[in-house]
């Protein structure tokens, strides 16, 4: 009966559950029996096949580059849309590149534990590259692009487009350090400096501090955004991980204030993690 205490950690845990529904099934996932195939294409607010946003010209910044500003639907920015990988033994069905032995064990342990140790469910940053199943807002200026999250921690990422390089001796962080440049109409965001706490997906795939993330943002028309995600992490994977994400504009909406920690019902679980012996 106390199980609900963990599960009811509100949307953090709820998104975990939904993420488990939607993520590639490289290992047995809980509660996925009978899920319709369409569920694999999204999570969060409604699920289903990716839809198209409205067409029309792409707004431009004062420097002539595409302006990504707007509210973008979160439900399709999931890795499950189109994931491929390369490397010896890469799985053609799950898109997960072959893992180093330590990672195989870690991921298996997380799966065995029904992903209950997911930090996202404890109001800690879930990514990147993992994305919360809620809307995101992009705010473009010529030298800086912001990614503002509604869900998960309601925090932000900064993409510096000012020609600067990654600082030396980066302190590892959840969100890493992102430097971006334009390749035609595509914004290429290069991120390093990650800690090794967050998961790559709801299936508990780990990453190391060596993770190198490249995200290519392209707005082909007014209502659609494509994000190509490339992950290289020689500390965890023997191959290269590639994800295609798509999302659509949400007009007339705003991201809401989401305060995960207001209803964080998992502290007991954390106490267990801190070895006080109590587990809900």
């Amino acid at each position: 009966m106390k199980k609900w205490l963990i599960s009811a950690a509100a949307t953090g845990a709820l998104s975990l559950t939904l993420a488990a529904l939607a993520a590639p099934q490289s290992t047995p996932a809980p509660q996925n029996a009978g899920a319709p195939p369409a569920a694999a294409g999204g999570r969060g607010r409604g699920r289903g096949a990716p839809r198209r946003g409205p067409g029309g010209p792409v707004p431009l910044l004062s420097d002539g580059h595409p302006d990504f500003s707007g509210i973008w639907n979160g439900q399709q920015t999931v890795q499950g849309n189109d994931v491929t990988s390369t490397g010896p033994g890469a799985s053609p069905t799950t898109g997960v590149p072959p893992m180093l032995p330590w990672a195989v064990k870690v991921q298996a342990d997380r799966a065995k534990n029904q992903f209950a140790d997911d930090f996202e469910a404890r109001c800690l940053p879930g990514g990147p590259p993992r994305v919360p199943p809620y809307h995101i807002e992009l705010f473009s200026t010529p030298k800086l692009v912001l990614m503002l999250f509604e869900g998960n921690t309601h925090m932000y990422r900064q993409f510096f487009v000012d020609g600067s390089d990654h600082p030396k001796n980066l302190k590892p962080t959840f969100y890493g350090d992102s430097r971006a440049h334009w390749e035609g109409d595509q914004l290429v965001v290069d991120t390093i400096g990650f800690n090794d706490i967050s998961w790559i997906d709801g299936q508990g795939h780990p990453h190391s501090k060596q993770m190198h993330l490249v995200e290519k943002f392209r707005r082909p028309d007014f209502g659609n955004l494509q994000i190509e995600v490339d992950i290289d992490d020689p500390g965890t994977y023997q191959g290269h991980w590639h994800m295609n994400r798509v999302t659509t504009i949400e007009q007339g909406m705003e991201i809401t204030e989401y305060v995960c920690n207001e209803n964080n019902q998992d502290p007991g679980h954390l106490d267990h993690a801190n070895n006080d012996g109590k587990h809900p």
Partner: protein
Amino acid sequence: MNTKRHELTKASLAIAALALLALPATAQQPAKLRGFPNGVPPVKARKPPAPPTGATPKTPEGKTDFSGVWVLQGSTTISAEPSYQPWAQKLYEQRKAAKGKGDPESFCLPDGAVRVTALPYKFVQGPKMIVVLSEGNTHSFRRFFLDGRKPDPQLDLDPNMYTGVSIGHWDGDALVVDTVGFNDKTWLDPSGKPHSDAMKLTERYTRPDLGHLNVDITVDDEKALTKPFTFKRVFALAPGWDLQEYVCQAILDGVEAP
């Protein structure tokens, strides 16, 4: 659209909660939160460089450009003593007597729109919106809408927020930001100054020179105050700085050092 989404969100959450969790009614009450017993551990202070001198920058549209990383000068405690209605005065006295115990900040909850930390803030400015990023507290953001919108649709969406809905307009070189739509959960400063959900916040931002940001703040609250009160804050530009990542919850959980 907003109402529709609001209903969808609520409905989907409710359905999911019922279907997956069979949530008992009592579970909808906030759980007993875990927090820092003695307040948020102080972050290793970075001493900002001296603010530069020079003329106030302007945007291509000719407006005052507030872009930059700013650090509060002076105390985070509000110097003014609000004239409270009896219930609010009583609550204020209780909080002062408790010496910070129960401070929402110590539970990694948002400071809201009035309270500030000693850690830096970053203003990112566009013609239709200014985003204020916070390094400390919940490492979150406020948005000042400059697109001429009215607050009502957003309030319909989410009437009780920590940071409210902020709509700005230009008054010459000053940016005036009106914020409503608050909940009553935040403290206005570390001393525990309370407010109600009727709070109306007016901030008048000016940048008299390159290195300084002045904010004239008026707090009106017909449920908690007998009359509005005003105070002023000054921030100094920290040239060469950017925000660092700060995750209160990670420190609380012991997965990161303060």
